[in-house]
């Protein structure tokens, strides 16, 4: 089941039509790693941060901190096939092996750095590894692992830790009339306290003007992304999911210089819009099926999508949790902490009114229904993960509602984010044949019910 090299590559065309504008964005992230490492070697304090949906990213950047995202680093470990020794190290230190792959990789990395390499970066860590943290920024958003594993890192590092918060709810409770106000109040206070803490830690004051500047840039980056997502709805789909996954860090956690990444996203928008005009597809084969991917990709086996592209499977949209929503107008908000609170909260809560109207109790379901309609999906590729419950637990319900409300079928493919040993590409390709027939059938059903795709 290992990936064999494609024979006669020169004769075969590339399956996925990669956007030119994706490459500089990807390089920005890689360069960012190298710059971060360089900066830590020069003594600049490094923060290990969890994805915090921008609550923490912007204050950290405004304070000029060097930030590393272990979750993202773990995907690099997976993609470069180097994750196993770190996963094993985590197991050997007594952590259960059913835990989040990113968590295992980070814990394993920390163990090897501190217990086996005397505090130095493990030599085989790709891209120069992650520097020892001076601060750990955990987050309770999305899942328990994300704050529990940082808490567990006290075993290896004496670095102080902070845990950021974000409420998570079901539709009914999430649309209570007074909820927004007291949630924003809560988040604003937390962010304020967090910034006070950073000031104490770094012995310098927050540069509020800089923070405001970054918030403006953040809004612009997100607006641009939103436009790209809208443009991606075209038929044929102009941008394949793999391009998104390769270029998302600058919008997901504002990796790199935000002025630079804003420009690069604007370039990407232009390129996508150009493709739409020319009806150019994200794959180099005729688009036979428009597929939505949920939720987290198999970082270790991204080349696998080439085989599906050759069958005309165009992955037109993916991973709602990695995107942003259209940014809200924050001009009437004065307090920058409140701005951040509203900015971050908006991503999770903006779907609630629609979910309430449609009487859908799980907001993730409503999000994917909206996506399926917007992108005129033929099928869902559901990828539940053995180590990530949070990103997998709603998938059954999404599957049911997509079938029930929109007659869109789903292909269920189990795997893991990091551990490639549990993913079986041959099996998927075999199932794909049958699934095409299912998708053909439901196309007819949808048409018969008056839907236009």
């Amino acid at each position, binding site marked *: 089941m290992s990936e064999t090299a494609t024979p006669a590559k020169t004769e075969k065309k590339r399956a996925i039509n990669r956007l030119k504008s994706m490459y500089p964005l990807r390089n920005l992230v890689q360069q960012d790693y190298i710059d971060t490492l360089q900066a830590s070697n020069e003594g600049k304090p490094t923060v290990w941060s969890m994805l915090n949906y921008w609550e923490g990213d912007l204050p950290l950047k405004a304070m000029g901190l060097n930030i590393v995202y272990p979750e993202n680093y773990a995907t690099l470990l997976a993609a470069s096939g180097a994750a196993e020794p770190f996963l094993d190290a985590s197991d050997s*230190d*007594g*952590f*259960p092996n*059913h*835990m*989040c792959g990113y*968590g295992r990789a980070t814990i394993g990395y920390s163990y090897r750095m501190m217990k086996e390499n005397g505090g130095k970066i493990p030599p085989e860590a790709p891209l120069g590894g992650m520097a020892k943290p001076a601060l750990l920024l*955990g987050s*309770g958003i999305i*899942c*328990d*692992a994300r*704050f*529990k*594993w940082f*808490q*567990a890192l*006290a*075993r290896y*590092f*004496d*670095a*102080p*830790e902070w*845990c950021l*918060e974000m*409420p*998570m*709810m*079901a539709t*009914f*409770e999430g649309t*209570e009339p*007074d*909820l927004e106000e*007291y*949630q924003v*109040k*809560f988040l604003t*206070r*937390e962010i304020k*306290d967090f910034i*006070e*803490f950073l000031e*104490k*830690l770094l012995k310098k004051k927050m540069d509020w003007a800089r923070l405001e500047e970054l918030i403006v840039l953040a809004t612009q980056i997100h607006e641009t992304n939103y436009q790209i997502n809208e443009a991606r709805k075209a038929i044929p789909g102009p941008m394949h999911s793999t391009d998104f996954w390769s270029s998302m860090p600058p919008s997901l956690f504002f990796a790199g210089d935000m002025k630079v990444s804003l420009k690069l996203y604007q370039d990407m928008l232009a390129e996508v819009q150009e493709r739409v005009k020319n009806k150019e597809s994200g794959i180099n084969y005729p688009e036979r099926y428009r597929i939505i991917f949920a939720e987290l990709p198999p970082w270790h086996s991204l080349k696998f999508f080439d085989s599906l592209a050759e069958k005309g499977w165009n992955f037109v949209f993916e991973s709602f949790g990695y995107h942003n929503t259209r940014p809200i107008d924050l001009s009437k908000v004065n307090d920058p902490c409140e701005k951040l609170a509203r900015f971050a909260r908006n991503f999770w809560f903006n779907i609630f009114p629609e979910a309430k109207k449609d009487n859908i*109790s*799980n907001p993730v379901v409503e999000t994917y229904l909206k996506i399926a309609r917007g992108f005129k999906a033929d099928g869902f590729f559901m990828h*539940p993960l*053995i180590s990530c*419950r*949070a990103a*997998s*637990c*709603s*998938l*059954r*319900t999404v599957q*049911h509602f997509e079938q029930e409300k929109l007659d869109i079928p789903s292909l269920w493919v189990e795997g893991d984010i990091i551990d490639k040993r549990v993913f079986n590409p041959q099996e998927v390709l075999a199932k794909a044949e049958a699934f095409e027939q299912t998708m053909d059938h439901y196309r007819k059903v949808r048409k018969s019910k008056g839907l236009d795709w």
Partner: protein
Amino acid sequence: MVIATTKGLSRAHEIYTDRGLRVRELRKAGKKIVGYVCLYPPVEIISALGLVPFRVFGDMSEPITAADQVSITVVCPFLRSIIDLGLKGKFNFLDGIVGAHTCDIGMTLIISWRDYVKDAPFTHLIDVPHTDHAPAVDYFEGQINSFKRHIEEFAGEKLTDDKLKKACELHNKQRKLVRELYDLRKSDPPLLTSIENVEVLIAISSLPVDEGNELLEDVIREIKSRSIKPPRKKARLLVWGPVFDNTSLYQLIENADANVVIDDTCVGTRAFWADVKAPYNLHALAQRYLVDIKCPRTYRDSCHQELERNYDKDLDSRFNYIKKAITDWKVNGAILQSVKYCDTHGYEVPNLRHYLDTLGIPSIYIEHDYSERSLAPIKTRVEAFLETLD
């Protein structure tokens, strides 16, 4: 009025075996039964409004046959069992179910219940912040208030300060009685077994608070007046971990020549150790539930705002309540148990074991999938662990 024909430990056993026994009777008599999952829904509010709180558990002996239609398999088997039972109509005596965002899957459970289960049509999900910071406590108070408003509608009456005070006092009384029950295991040998203890605690969680208090008083009296004392065993153990609502594990341990004298689980001490403090208002509830309950799902920030996180200090701050239990109950070994796929507890294990090491308490970690057959391999490990305590 229905008079219970059995009393004390027999009554506890009766209800442990058929947990809906009493609430079904009450429902027939016109009472509304509100189920709750986990420790974070404030039962005081439920009781104060004249409703009967009923703690919802899974069933270890029921094979999971329906849950896979709505849930992926790699999730907490205890919660999977609950949704499985819900789908099969086994909770048809509930008028409502309340859950809290105590863990990812705990939250998903209530959402799925809403989508797929017909029984218990009143549902509510309380969001619980992850930390115990001051702004979090205030936010949680807001959530409790939202819950209060919703359940007032359902109950058809308003919550008054007086009703809430009375309910807090009754529930605090129950906690005090439970602590008295636990005191009976401080002696060597303990005056009751952990099996009896679990049955009593499950029973009171399946009864209205006043009936639970009566049962506890009967049980304590009964135990104190027993002439036959249980045998002395060399090992005095603490059992730690998430909910284990079945006597089978305790049976297994006690058969292997050990006494479980205290626990840190949510069937046991986590549920009953902390009282609601005066004034008995929503803020006091928020404080009790978010801050005073010691469960790994809450990030108890030992070094909040500090510029360094000292490992030993952090561990001590998080776990010194266990140290106290070990000292007061003269514990000489610990069994850490958890279900497969529980992240909340899984991440704690190496650090907790390290802490126990520093206290000189040997420990073993066992993982199971909340099914009776998963206990067989555990038997050997527990026995071998006890053999190392020689």
